[in-house]
């Protein structure tokens, strides 16, 4: 099977899945209590039934369910995710506007967690009864059980109020002046705390997983073969063992990327990070159905693409599952 057939086949499956998820989401939101008319009426300080009905007519909410659904899918097929009642902006435009902030946060947190977690896991595995090994286990337990918003708030208290070294909220400081370099530094400065907060959950998972996986691999026959060749400890561990131990880490990374939006909602909200998570939070509160649907649609798209990428990366690491190989 070539990479192309794989892409076509998985792409087809993905499309069907996407449609199914979409219908489900649409049905759920349609049946959820409250709609945009309630929100608008609330903002106006109350409205009578006549006005409410007018608003619903304006937004096409009075038509039968299947008509609304068909209309939505029809527009979607043309790449139109609809219009956000609440933000007064096309949904696609808003999504694309907020996407970079979330990507920056989630990707940097993931990269930090994967690299640091793997290294910690490897070191712990090499001395399974050492201090660091126990440290990793305890740290993993803490990191995993502490709610992410709690970690975020603690970090804010520690680094923004007791030792005021980092900004509390946002992504940029509008008062900062200078060229692109200064602006980039400013973003990184704002990024630090939310990134560490988000990474803390992942880090615990990755280090624990890398430790377990590495312990398995260090006991294998081929690691002993590598030692019998007279290779250095470094080569034995990082060339021969680590690459075999990475499989579970890659799988986990794929799963985590899938949760790109859900994972970011809390952290973004705590730090007022202007990404998709904050957007999701706001649009759910506002009963902004097209916006919520758009975000959900986008999330499922990310899940499907992330899975495909995971498979491709996996096959790069391990030739036994390399596409197109026999055996």
């Amino acid at each position, binding site marked *: 099977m070539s990479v192309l057939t794989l892409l076509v086949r998985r792409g087809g499956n993905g499309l069907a899945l996407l449609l199914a998820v979409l219908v489900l989401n649409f049905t759920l939101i349609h049946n959820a209590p409250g709609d945009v008319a309630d929100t608008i009426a609330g903002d106006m300080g109350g409205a009578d039934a006549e006005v409410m009905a007018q608003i619903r007519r304006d937004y096409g909410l009075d038509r039968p369910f299947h008509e609304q659904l068909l209309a939505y899918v029809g527009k979607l097929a043309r790449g139109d995710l609809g219009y956000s009642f609440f933000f007064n902006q096309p949904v696609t435009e808003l999504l694309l506007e907020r996407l970079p902030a979330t990507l920056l946060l989630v990707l940097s947190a993931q990269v930090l967690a994967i690299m640091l977690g793997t290294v910690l896991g490897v070191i712990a595995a090499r001395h399974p009864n050492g201090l660091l090994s126990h440290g990793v286990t305890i740290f993993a337990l803490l990191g995993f059980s502490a709610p992410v918003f709690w970690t975020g708030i603690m970090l804010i208290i520690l680094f923004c109020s007791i030792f005021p070294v980092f900004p509390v909220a946002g992504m940029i400081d509008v008062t900062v002046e200078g060229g692109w370099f200064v602006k980039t530094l400013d973003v990184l400065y704002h990024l630090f705390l939310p990134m560490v907060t988000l990474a803390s959950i992942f880090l615990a998972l990755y280090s624990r997983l890398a430790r377990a996986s590495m312990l398995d691999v260090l006991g294998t026959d081929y690691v002993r073969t590598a030692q019998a060749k007279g290779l250095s400890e470094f080569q034995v561990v990082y060339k021969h063992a680590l690459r*075999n131990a990475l499989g579970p880490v890659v799988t986990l990374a794929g799963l985590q990327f899938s949760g790109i939006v859900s994972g970011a909602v809390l952290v973004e909200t705590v730090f007022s990070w202007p990404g998709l998570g904050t957007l999701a939070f706001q649009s759910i509160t506002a009963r902004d159905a097209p916006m919520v649907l758009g975000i959900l649609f986008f999330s499922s798209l990310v899940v499907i693409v992330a899975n495909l990428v995971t498979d491709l990366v996996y096959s790069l690491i391990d030739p036994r599952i390399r596409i197109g190989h026999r055996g």
Partner: protein
Amino acid sequence: MSEPHSGPLLSLRDLTVEFATRDGTVPVLDRLSIDLDAGATLGLVGESGCGKSMTALAIMGLVPSPPGRFAGGSILFADEDLTRASDAHLRDIRGNSISMIFQEPMTSLNPVYTIGEQIAEVLRRHQDLGRRAAWERAVELLDSVSIPLPGRRAHDYPHQLSGGMRQRVMIAIALACRPRILIADEPTTALDVTVQAQIFDLLQALREETGTAIILITHDMGVVAEMTERVVVMYAGRMVEEGPVRDILSEPHHPYTRGLIASVPHLHAEVSDEPEDLLEIPGIVPSLAEFGQERCLFAPRCPRVSDRCRSEQPLLRGSGGWHKAACWHPEAGPA
């Protein structure tokens, strides 16, 4: 490195390796003394769990630690004590002057690298070869272990090869740097019979060609009879009999050795005129916890056991020349 030295190429002198267990330390190798001359072949026999693999790992400096540690004696290789050598120095020796192949060809190669790379790697490590030269030499080595289309096969991953082919690759890796000693730990136990014979033929041919000394570990006296000049029989971490293959097969002194010979069909027929009556040795090898006790550890399974055997440890005694056994009541006469 290869200064002229006197005596055997490799000499274990009262080598003791201890394992830390829950109930204290036990000698997994108990005052083991074995000599190996340059270019010689030595069989190391015994049932599973007698310490054969541990002997090999000790020579390689790869005793798992914890739980293991050297607790006495020495391993002299070209007159240098390997039990005192630095890790760095041991790494220079491993895969270079002493190499090893393992019992499990299916799992002994790294699944994520091509076999060409796995051979080339050891050449780059020990010989001053660049990437290209090492790869070309790796292909030659694949050819020398009779792998067809070596140039193409070098790009294969282990999972694309059969068990027999993988063991050939392991042999190529082990012999890449023309070692002075090759330790083969049950190299064919996991392979089917026809492939076994091919692997042994290959080892024989390569030995004649390269003059490397071979320590062949096996639980099969039949293999020893075909492949080696001398035999060491091990039981529960101790050497119980040692001598030239012919002497030991024709006149084994130790009841354990007798039992091992009696359990191999064609061997038994060769050395005795009696009708075939194949005997499994009753009982099992003692567990590690019982190793090291000051008595004959074979006593519970021995047909000739006396009270003395249970209270005093028999030491190795020679019956002239090279043939020695550790038994209070050695047998005389053919097996």
